[in-house]
């Protein structure tokens, strides 16, 4: 409620500033003008939204698959841990705007570079949070399973993986929120569709309101993805203290 109120006040201030302050709407369109562009250019923007959403979903899925596999490998085998840890950390140290043109150069203008760049942005939060979650299991439950002569696989399946779910979801939610960044940089480096592409075109045409509309859609996409995973978490890992109703 409070958040909505804050946003409304900010939007009203923005609107007033543009309308009354005499700011050129080529430089800064008012929120109502952005809304208007969103509606009039809907046929232009909708396919771009679909393209970017698809890129983000595929990239996120690739990151979850790769990050999950790497985290489990690192957890189970100390050799894998030694071998992969620098790569996992390194993946986060890669500056996406710098590498994006290179990736496009190698992989071309198709879907592949977009998926790769989204996955690159998402990989680290997914892998590192799952890895921490796997290690961070109740020592008493671990002791119990050992006393029952549980195999490594049983311990992983019955204790560590379910116990790591909340932490894994934290990683996935962070990834969902930043995935859009990877998609936009990939599109800027070479593409003929997507919201990032639409943003470039609108900028070039001085269609500032449309550029803002595309930005708004990117923001909305990130928020919706985050919300979807938060909902999924409540269904799948509803036993965590933090997802009890009324909890913090």
């Amino acid at each position, binding site marked *: 409620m409070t958040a909505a109120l804050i946003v409304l006040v900010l939007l009203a201030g923005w609107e007033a500033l543009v309308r009354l302050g005499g700011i050129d709407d080529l430089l800064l369109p008012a929120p109502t003008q952005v809304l208007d562009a969103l509606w009039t250019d809907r046929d232009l923007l909708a396919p771009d939204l679909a393209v970017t959403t698809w890129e983000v979903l595929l990239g996120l899925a690739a990151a979850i698959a790769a990050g999950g596999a790497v985290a489990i490998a690192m957890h189970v085998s100390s050799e894998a841990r030694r071998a992969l840890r620098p790569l996992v950390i390194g993946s986060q140290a890669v500056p996406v705007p710098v590498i994006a043109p290179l990736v496009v150069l190698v992989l071309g203008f198709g879907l592949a570079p977009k998926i790769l760049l989204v996955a690159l942005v998402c990989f680290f939060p997914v892998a590192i949070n799952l890895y921490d979650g796997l290690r961070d299991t*109740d020592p*008493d*439950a671990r*002791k*119990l*399973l*050992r*006393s*029952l*002569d*549980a195999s490594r696989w*049983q311990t992983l399946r*019955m*204790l560590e993986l*379910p*116990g790591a*779910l909340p932490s894994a979801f934290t990683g996935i939610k962070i990834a969902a929120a930043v995935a859009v960044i990877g998609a936009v940089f990939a599109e800027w480096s070479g593409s003929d569709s997507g919201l990032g592409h639409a943003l470039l075109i609108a900028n070039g045409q001085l269609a500032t309101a449309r550029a803002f509309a595309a930005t708004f859609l990117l923001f909305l996409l990130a928020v919706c993805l985050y919300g979807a995973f938060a909902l999924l978490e409540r269904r799948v*890992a509803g*036993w*965590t*203290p933090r997802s*009890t109703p009324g909890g913090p």
Partner: protein
Amino acid sequence: MKTEVEAPGVEPRDVSGGVTIAGVEKSFGPVRALDGVSLRAEPREVVAVAGPSGCGKSTLLELVCGLQRPDAGAVTAAPAALMPQRDGLLPWLSALDNAALALRVAGVGRAAARAAAREHFAAFGLEGFERARLRELSGGMRQRVAFLRTLLAGRPLLCLDEPFGALDALTRLTMQRWLADALEREPRTVLLVTHDVEEAALLADRIVLLSPRPGRVVETLDVPLRRPRHRSDPAIVALRERALAALGADS
């Protein structure tokens, strides 16, 4: 046939149901947890190990369950099921699935394991809570689920680590009586670790008193009293006072 296990030998396993611990020593780095502890439990005997915090009681149970190896001395034990101090229940499983966990680990199918656990729910006062999540259970119910899980491991020896340590005084009294009844129905060899000498006197056939770290046996008290026992019974009160005196607590 008993298999003597010398440190740092293989896992202590024996099928007769008893435990023999002979001159066991265990250190963790510079900390000496156990210093020459010896005790035994005959099959179907309840032996309480009582002592102050940090006297190595939990370490003793881990040795018996094969989770640790002694630095010196020998542990000969039947296959043991451990009930850890903070119950070790899994919050994502229902009460029924938690109780059935040991069976699942042993390779029993989901339906069969659940059916086996469900049979005991009424006797354990858990009827109607089969599908309940942990946060819907009271402290006493959680302990009963954990105890049922321990029992269903199907091992002759139960290692209970402060099973009622986290409960309020009133619930603890109820649960002590409940455990005595449950063991009457399903007799097992029990090693009961507790810091509460009264609990030891109420439940055990024998009480082994350990000194503060490093743990040594201060005294062993037999409890030749009939069950059910009551805490107001003069014999229990006398035993409690004697145990406290032996542990150096002046009353």
